């Protein structure tokens, strides 16, 4: 690896030609030094990345001027000792604004008290997420997993540069130096230099120091990783000062609301704007390709006018979902899933499940279903945009899960180069997958209206807009068959999923890159941890035209519900304990057995409860192993299920921020509770029937169980925690209800009506 070094004294920066001059291969890092201290920029991607980084930095005016003066660094060390570290992921409550910089700080041996966290600018070549091909995209609970090793390496490289400088300064061998937090120490002479002091005089190497995996700290030496800390933005979240996009105001802005077509692809037909225009404060009514918008002086005027307008608009019948009814649609899905004559797409297979099924001593089958579900992030969608008079540049203020998608979507809709879009992004009042669609339609609302208005527009979605125009966890029907040999061993599992497509709608670019596979729908069907020699998972592709989306837990929420509930049935038919059954299935997965053992002990699995029962589930999810147990009672007259306790054991490898692992797991359980018990979106004639929290009911405080989370610590590479427990909840509840009543709940959510119907 080679590096290019540019030096700067104060503001006197090297001329551009030197900055970019050929010292052979261009750098993976830029190191800048001067009165302002040291800055280190790295690229996460190999080869030409640094050149691209330099060019990208130039191209993005706000990030760098043409001299590279503000070239965006990962780490900057100021002479006063302040260590500024970029955080590349967007923050929606999951905590990576803190945990990613902490990974760098660990290997840098920075004093966390000196660290200042800075949200990274949109420069993929430097900050892109290796887990998403270098896009800046915060999703899939993969930020810590994907960035972990590169960030550790960068931190270690910066530390080495500081040590080398101290060695030269004191004229002592590098081997005699060590670091304490924020300080290089020469024990022999008792001399010490703070990182800030070194930043004041440091000279720079021509080559980045090489850091081998063995040079990184052993987990036992971690001071920050694995130790709890208050998340950096938390103090702003108890006094109202945390800034979300919805809180931003820019000079000259007005407000916009959009009455969107009920069906994707429909357009406004007749519009009578007389009543809307009569509302005081209304500026204009604007026809958009997909809706009718109001521009007004205040949000309230905009809302009133939209309500008046909504009653008058008629819509074209263009768009696929017209006529679709989710109850009837599900019936078709179910019959297709059951009809083995209809061949699906083989999503995942090992061995030969159909042949093994034919030879099996006995076959058990079952059908399950899951409804559409809505994200219900607390901050309704919103954005501000400003577009230049010539339409050749734009600035946006928003909360997004992907800086890349946000900038690209705006550039595409305006037909301008991406570097002409300035992005300001903020904390998000929840994400759960809703703010990472390729088209970022809520930002485009603001862009189109700002262009029309000739001034900045803040677009606000009301909660009803957020529900009616939601993008949902897909509707799915499942049919499963289990083949058992003469000894009762599960030898074959066949799972057919008829489900509404997600990725083709939510992100056509990724769908194409994924060779037209839809992991958002199908992930979770693979059973790599279980000893089941023959497995086949088929996808029966369905496109209803309904808007769909990744939603916390993605395909796992449906697929793990049905698989784990089905395994519970298989255990029941074999007359064995479901936990014992998992031990059998996990015979080659010691980490899986460990979490099962742990959670069984936590819940005292073998103990009978009066009037209550326990249900169990195990999941492997992108490398994280989780097991959960629910303690449940049921009010038969009302059909109401009560979850009293939920125990969860999680092995996510190295737990970078243990309390946050616990917090995310608690959060995942509550989210799973809603998906299991009450949350469902229904569609009639293509349109969403629910509107707000009165008919889309999310868990409240009186419904949540006592949650008991334990982390099973291992030294494995860290894996995700943001959603892994969500899919445990439905199968655990279903198992408990089956033990309480003998009745298996097969359609999620288990609303009181459905429970009563199932009980007969």
């Amino acid at each position, binding site marked *: 690896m080679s590096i290019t070094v540019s030096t700067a004294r104060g503001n006197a920066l090297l001329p551009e030609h030197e900055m970019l001059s050929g010292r052979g291969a261009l750098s993976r890092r830029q190191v800048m030094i001067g009165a302002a201290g040291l800055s280190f920029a790295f690229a996460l991607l190999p080869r030409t990345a640094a050149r691209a980084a330099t060019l990208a930095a130039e191209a993005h005016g706000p990030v760098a001027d043409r001299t590279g003066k503000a070239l965006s660094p990962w780490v900057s060390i100021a002479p006063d000792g302040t260590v500024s570290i970029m955080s590349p992921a967007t923050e929606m409550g999951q905590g990576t604004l803190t945990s990613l910089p902490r990974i760098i700080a660990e290997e840098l041996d920075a004093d966390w008290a000196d660290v200042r966290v800075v949200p990274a600018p949109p420069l993929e070549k430097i900050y892109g997420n290796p887990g998403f091909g270098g896009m800046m995209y915060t999703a899939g609970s993969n930020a810590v997993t994907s960035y972990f090793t590169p960030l550790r390496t960068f931190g270690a490289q910066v530390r080495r540069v500081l040590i080398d400088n101290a060695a030269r300064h004191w004229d002592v061998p590098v081997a005699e130096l060590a670091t304490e937090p924020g300080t290089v120490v020469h024990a022999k002479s008792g001399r010490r230099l703070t990182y800030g002091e070194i930043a004041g005089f440091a000279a720079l190497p021509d080559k980045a120091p090489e850091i081998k995996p063995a040079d990184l700290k052993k987990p036992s030496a971690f001071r920050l990783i694995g130790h709890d800390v208050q998340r950096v933005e938390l103090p702003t979240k108890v006094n109202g000062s945390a800034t979300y996009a919805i809180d931003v105001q820019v000079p000259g802005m007005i407000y916009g609301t959009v009455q969107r077509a009920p069906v994707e692809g429909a357009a406004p037909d007749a519009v009578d704007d007389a009543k809307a225009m009569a509302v005081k404060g209304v500026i204009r009514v604007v026809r958009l390709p997909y809706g009718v918008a109001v521009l007004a002086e205040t949000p309230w005027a905009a809302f009133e006018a939209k309500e008046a307008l909504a009653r008058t608009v008629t819509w074209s019948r263009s768009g696929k979902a017209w006529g679709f009814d989710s109850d009837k649609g599900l019936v078709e899905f179910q019959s297709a899933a059951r009809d083995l004559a209809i061949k699906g797409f083989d999503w995942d297979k090992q061995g030969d499940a159909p042949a093994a099924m034919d030879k099996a001593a006995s076959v058990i089958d079952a059908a399950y279903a899951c409804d559409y579900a809505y994200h219900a992030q607390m901050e309704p969608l919103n954005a501000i945009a400003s577009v230049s008079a010539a339409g050749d540049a734009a600035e946006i203020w928003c909360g997004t899960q992907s800086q890349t998608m946000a900038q690209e979507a705006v550039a595409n809709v305006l037909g301008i180069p991406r570097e002409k879009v300035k992005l300001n992004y903020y904390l998000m009042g929840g994400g759960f997958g809703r703010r990472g669609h390729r088209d970022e339609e809520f930002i485009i609302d603001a862009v189109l209206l700002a262009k029309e208005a000739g001034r900045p527009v803040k677009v606000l979605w009301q*909660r009803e807009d957020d529900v009616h125009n939601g993008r949902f966890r897909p509707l799915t029907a499942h049919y499963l068959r289990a083949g058992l040999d003469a000894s009762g061993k599960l030898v074959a599992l066949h799972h057919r999923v008829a489900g509404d497509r997600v990725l083709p709608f939510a992100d056509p670019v990724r769908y194409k890159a994924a060779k037209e596979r839809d992991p958002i729908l199908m992930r979770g069907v693979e059973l790599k941890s279980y000893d089941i020699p023959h497995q086949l998972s088929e996808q029966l592709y369905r496109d209803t035209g309904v808007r769909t989306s990744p939603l916390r837990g993605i395909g796992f929420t449906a697929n793990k519900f049905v698989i784990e509930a089905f395994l519970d049935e298989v255990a029941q038919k074999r007359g064995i304990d479901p936990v014992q059954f998992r031990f059998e299935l996990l015979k080659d997965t010691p980490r899986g057995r460990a979490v099962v053992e742990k959670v069984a002990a936590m819940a005292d699995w073998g103990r009978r409860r009066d009037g209550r029962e326990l249900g169990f589930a195990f999941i492997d999810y992108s490398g994280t192993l989780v097991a959960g147990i629910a303690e449940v009672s049921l009010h038969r007259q009302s059909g109401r299920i009560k979850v009293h306790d939920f125990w969860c054991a999680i092995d996510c490898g190295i737990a970078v921020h243990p309390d*946050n692992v616990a917090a995310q797991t608690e959060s995942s359980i509550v989210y799973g509770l809603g998906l299991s018990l009450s949350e469902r979106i229904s569609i009639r004639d293509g349109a969403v029937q629910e509107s707000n929290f009165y008919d889309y009911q999310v868990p*409240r405080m009186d419904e*949540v169980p006592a949650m008991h989370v334990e982390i099973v610590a291992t030294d494995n590479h860290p894996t995700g925690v943001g959603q892994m427990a969500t899919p445990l909840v439905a199968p655990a509840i279903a198992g408990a209800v089956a033990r309480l009543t003998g009745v298996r709940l097969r359609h999620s959510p288990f609303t009181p009506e459905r429970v009563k119907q199932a009980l007969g």
Partner: protein
Amino acid sequence: MQTKFNVNGNPVATEAPSHTPLLWVLREDLKLTGTKFGCGTGLCGACMVHIDGKRAYSCQTQMSEVAGRSVTTIEGLSPDSSHPLQKAWLAENVPQCGYCQSGQIMSAADLLQRKPIPTRAEIIDHMTTNICRCGTYQRIVRAIERAAREA
């Protein structure tokens, strides 16, 4: 018509139409954005403030009802995040996305004013007005118990 009222101890006036919800005047006119818009229908509690010392949904309170009264928002709960609930919220690492937490804290402050040492059942009963989609409920209960203990 002008509406005069007090916010966080300061007299303010607004020309907003009398049926405008307090929420939007607080947020967009007075730039007190700690009070949040969540549902607009009094179902989620993100907009919770105190009016004359009692909690109220600011999205359900029209300006005509506020005239001459005193409103406290999260920004006015304490000058320096020193309210026992704010300290307890940090001690228990309650917030995740944080969007609902102003409303949660304002609801909890209303409870502790009237019932300094609430039971767990009283806490849950009182706080069921407020939705937290991140599911921080268990930590909220712990934080309220801590604040009651340490106040």
